[in-house]
């Protein structure tokens, strides 16, 4: 602020100065208010939902507070349908990862070995499932497989979810591949390595961090998917469908107990990953 004009550079009257200070502080105050509201908006719903778990009220709420209980965890634990839904979701998630990881990686490698024009076309096709509403993916899958006499169920859930989750994997692997020095492959070839050995010893280790991250994201996407799953589930009930059905047909705080557990797991995972990241960064500095 050295370039003040001659007019304002002259000493101003005291009240003007105070006003000036206020007007300079105002944006900052406004921003703090905004930030507070934003965080409240983001977390209050989750906190209220979690808190309702401990209310004895049969309908999950925090107003009025009828009494504190741990009973809803008990009820959740005894809910066979919930366990079934949970195991199904986990199984579907693993199956989707097992499919999307190799296919997404192959797609990324395929893209990087095309010339610019062909790459543009294939890229658009591969990314399109991400820009397609989930319901449309579910419906398209359902219609195609009905022609083959296969109706909704776990198989179609995996297939429909993998359709767009593969695209996420592809993008993450492509991002990593962009930092890959292709000369490494040539160097290995020049040293007499077979194509398989180059893939196993040079390319795959390089892709490993991206593949781990992609597997995590793929699993998460599958585990929390609802829109696509809804159309292809047939009579199978994964966890998200189970929760949504509960909300409409007989919501009790047992569902909140489930939400609370998932939130806690999420927080723990996020913290573990962050600590891991910090440790790794620290380690690199030492070296």
């Amino acid at each position: 602020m050295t370039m003040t004009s001659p007019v304002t550079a002259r000493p101003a009257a005291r009240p003007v100065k105070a006003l000036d200070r206020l007007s300079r502080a105002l944006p900052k105050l406004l921003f703090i208010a905004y930030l507070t509201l934003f965080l409240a908006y983001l977390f209050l719903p989750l906190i209220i939902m979690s808190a309702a778990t401990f209310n004895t009220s049969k309908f999950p709420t925090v107003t009025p507070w009828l009494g504190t209980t741990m009973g809803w965890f008990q009820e959740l634990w005894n809910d066979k349908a919930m366990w079934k839904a949970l195991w199904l979701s986990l199984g579907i998630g693993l199956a989707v990862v097992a499919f999307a990881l190799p296919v997404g990686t192959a797609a990324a490698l395929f893209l990087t070995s095309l010339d610019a024009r062909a790459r543009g076309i294939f890229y658009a096709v591969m990314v399109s499932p991400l820009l397609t509403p989930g319901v449309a993916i579910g419906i398209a899958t359902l219609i195609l497989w009905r022609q083959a006499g296969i109706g909704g169920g776990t198989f179609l859930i995996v297939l429909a979810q993998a359709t767009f989750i593969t695209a996420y994997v592809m993008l993450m692997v492509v991002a990593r591949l962009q930092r890959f020095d292709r000369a490494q492959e040539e160097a290995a070839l020049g040293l007499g390595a077979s194509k398989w050995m180059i893939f196993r010893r040079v390319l795959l280790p390089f892709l490993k961090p991206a593949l781990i991250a992609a597997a995590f994201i793929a699993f998460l996407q599958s585990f929390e998917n609802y829109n696509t799953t809804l159309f292809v589930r047939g009579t199978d009930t994964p966890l998200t469908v189970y929760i949504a059905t509960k909300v409409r047909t007989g919501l009790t705080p047992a569902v909140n107990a489930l939400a609370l557990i998932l939130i806690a797991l999420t927080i723990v995972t996020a913290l573990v990953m962050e600590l891991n990241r910090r440790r790794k960064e620290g380690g690199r500095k030492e070296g």
Partner: protein
Amino acid sequence: MSHSVELIDVEQAFGDVKAVHHFSAHIAGGEFFSILGPSGCGKTTLLRLIAGFTEPTAGRVLIGDKDMAGIPADRRPTAMIFQSLALFPLMPVWENIAFGLEARGVPKAQRRKRAEELLELIALPGYGTRMVHELSGGQRQRVAIARALAVEPQVLLLDEPLSALDLKLRQHMRAELRALQKRTGVTFIYITHDQSEALAMSDRVAVMNAGVLQQIATPQELYANPATPFTARFVGETNGIIGTVRGLEAGLATLTTAEGRFTGRAGAGLEDGERASIFIRPEAMALSRIALPNSLSARAVSLEYEGASAMLRAVSEHGQELLATVPNRQLGEAPQAGEQIWLSFQPEEALILSEKGAAA
């Protein structure tokens, strides 16, 4: 004695673009051979087709008198060192070095032992378990060389491997590379755009421009007797003045130029009456305050002190830029900027080269 490399009329085209035109050279076994040229001149293409990453569109590549047509990179007796080095970042140093042995199915204990020997050779003993990112630029350089040498290649191909290093380290690595080459006796083919690098290390240098071979010669020969105007300008500093040949006699030629008439040695195949340029190295220029035979009248522009000597920049009245080396002991009489001077030279120290084919 390691293998020789013979390039016979090699040509490489990418679509309509010819990256390499009719290139022929014989590189003797155990020779340190450099290919020098500006970026985009086709030198990397040439190296890649010796390595077998690409096949030439025409011509033949012989390594150790054996035709390499159809033999892929992994089965040629060559190893390449890449500009980026292309070390494997996720393997420790020893696994990098032993990678080629691993590819050949050598047992682990033996690989480890060989890696240690090579680490000894490159003066990095005990570095085997380090990761690549823990090494300095010069150390990485040496690891890349060891990795290439591990497969006992007959011919080592080096693609500007020193370009990422800073000047001091680069100069140090030159000497080290040269010593390593002498010690191992492997044929080195070295690509660079840095003429001082090529001159410092090589037994012979091939100069290339726009895919065309200009000259193959020893460093001294290249500097003293460039075969083409391109080589004269590219290798070292020079003064080049264009004109027309008027008279050829006993190996000397006379050139009339906008700056006047000059006499110098006639280059090979120079003909009377054709367009040609006279080239005079800055150190052949003598500074005087009076007009002498074979001299150019000019105005001093600046004097750049370079340590062992100084470089005088001047401009003639026709706008020709001129360079002259001023030895330290003459610095006292160096001209002021704007001062009128004359730069003269001995005819034996100037070379007149035809500009006929140079337009290409």
